[in-house]
């Protein structure tokens, strides 16, 4: 019994597993930075949607509709790759010439090549997540702005507040209450989307789970075992459920705090 425990403890704390645990940092960073960016893009998008100028409204609408027409995975893959290629194209304009080393595929010459490794990919992944879920956030915030009862704004106007005062003192203050449930949902989406990091060559928790669970037959490579991936994926499944459960709790607290004294419905 004790030996078993010692064995499993040793197994679960070997170098491979430590790397797995360490790789959770990618997921957490992607969620946090992605979340901040999503909120930023969301506020910008909502401003565009509510703008007086038709052009801005058009841009906002296209941005917000984007996520409805195409899968988020597609965008998640496309944006970093496209961004990389865009940068390379930009660099190649000035760098590539007759002297440079030509290249068979992309970019046109090797000097223009931008080498992406984990930090860059992670940054781009955060931006991707920010853009995708920013569109959802924009929609949530826009809806919340509209959900603020007209009477509340009218009363402010009737007392002579300027448009800016109405916006900041009343409209945005009350908007959060209506936005929080929606934001909570977007946050859950974003957390779930962090599972896709491995698609961008990041050795994240999902990639390591696959590695650790794969069968091994070579004693030199470590413990010989069969296919254990199911156990690792179930662990991840449970991990994500716990994380969403926890965030939901936090959001519920936040909502309760934000709407203290407010009517219960809505």
């Amino acid at each position: 019994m004790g030996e078993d425990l010692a064995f499993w403890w040793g197994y679960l704390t070997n170098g491979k597993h430590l790397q797995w645990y360490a790789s959770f940092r990618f997921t957490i960073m992607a969620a946090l930075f992605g979340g901040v960016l999503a909120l930023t893009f969301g506020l910008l998008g909502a401003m565009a949607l509510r703008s007086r100028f038709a052009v801005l409204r058009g841009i906002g609408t296209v941005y917000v509709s984007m996520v409805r027409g195409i899968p988020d995975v597609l965008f998640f893959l496309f944006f970093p790759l496209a961004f990389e290629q865009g940068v390379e194209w930009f660099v190649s304009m000035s760098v590539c010439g007759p002297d440079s080393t030509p290249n068979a595929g992309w970019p046109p010459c090797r000097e223009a090549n931008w080498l992406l490794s984990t930090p860059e990919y992670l940054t781009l992944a955060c931006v991707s997540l920010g853009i995708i879920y920013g569109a959802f956030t924009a929609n949530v915030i826009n809806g919340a702005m509209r959900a603020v009862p007209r009477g509340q704004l009218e009363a402010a106007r009737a007392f002579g507040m300027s448009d800016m005062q109405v916006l900041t003192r009343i409209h945005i203050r009350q908007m959060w209450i209506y936005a929080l449930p929606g934001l909570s949902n977007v946050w859950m989406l974003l957390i779930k989307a962090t599972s896709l990091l491995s698609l961008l060559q990041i050795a994240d928790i999902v990639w390591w789970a696959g590695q650790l669970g794969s069968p091994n037959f070579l004693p030199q490579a470590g413990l010989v075992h069969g296919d254990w991936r199911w156990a690792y994926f179930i662990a991840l499944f449970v991990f994500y459920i716990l994380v969403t459960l926890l965030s939901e709790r936090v959001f519920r607290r936040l909502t309760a705090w934000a709407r203290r004294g407010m009517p219960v419905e809505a």
Partner: protein
Amino acid sequence: MDALLAIWSEIPRYGQPALFNLYFAIASLPIGFIFALGLALGRNSNNRVLRGLCSGYIYAFRGSPLFIQFFMFYSIMLALNPIWWRPMELSWLMMNPLFIGPLALVMNTAAYTAEILYGALRTVPRGELEAARAFGMSRTQVFRTVTWPNTIRIAWPAYTNEVVFLFHATALVYFTLPVINAQRDIMNTAQLMFERDYNAFLHFSVAAIWFLAISLLIFFIFGRIYERLMRHLPPDQVPARPRLRFRPKYIR
């Protein structure tokens, strides 16, 4: 101009792969819906155990990434293969991506759809339910006469979104399951082509166009059905049509 031409000429290449995405969606939606209805009713029931089980299921599958659910299902099915499927001679079916894909999608969409239906069940006008009960209808009659027609109408816009997002989710299947006999979906094809010539703009755009087109088609068809469902309300009282709504709560 060249770019547009290139996109245009590449579009047909995704026709066959698109069939796979459509297959995954069509194979999982009806079963998922029936399963979801059971879950929603269970969650709405007075039986605490049943309610707990259904809520737990719905929470688990909405609270975790589909991407991981795919991996999990495949590896579990694989682990079960030597002890169950092979002895029962079911391997050919159980281990087929064309089965596991829809299986995972069914489990997943059932949870999301159940949440939608549950929300709708809760908003069925209480008065109409009471009226039905006051006239002596049995449980099943109340369900037929009031609960179901109201639920489906209330849920339809959100369900339309669920259908579209489930269709999008089919893009994940071949990121996670092995490819058999070069059967590839849109996303996998785009990925493969991209790895050949690194032309992200071309291949991913074409994939996006396919997804977009089919999404719009779904919105159109479901919008039509919605109009029919809502013909009992004067036009100005009909809630926003499906295409105008979207609720992140119901997206994976």
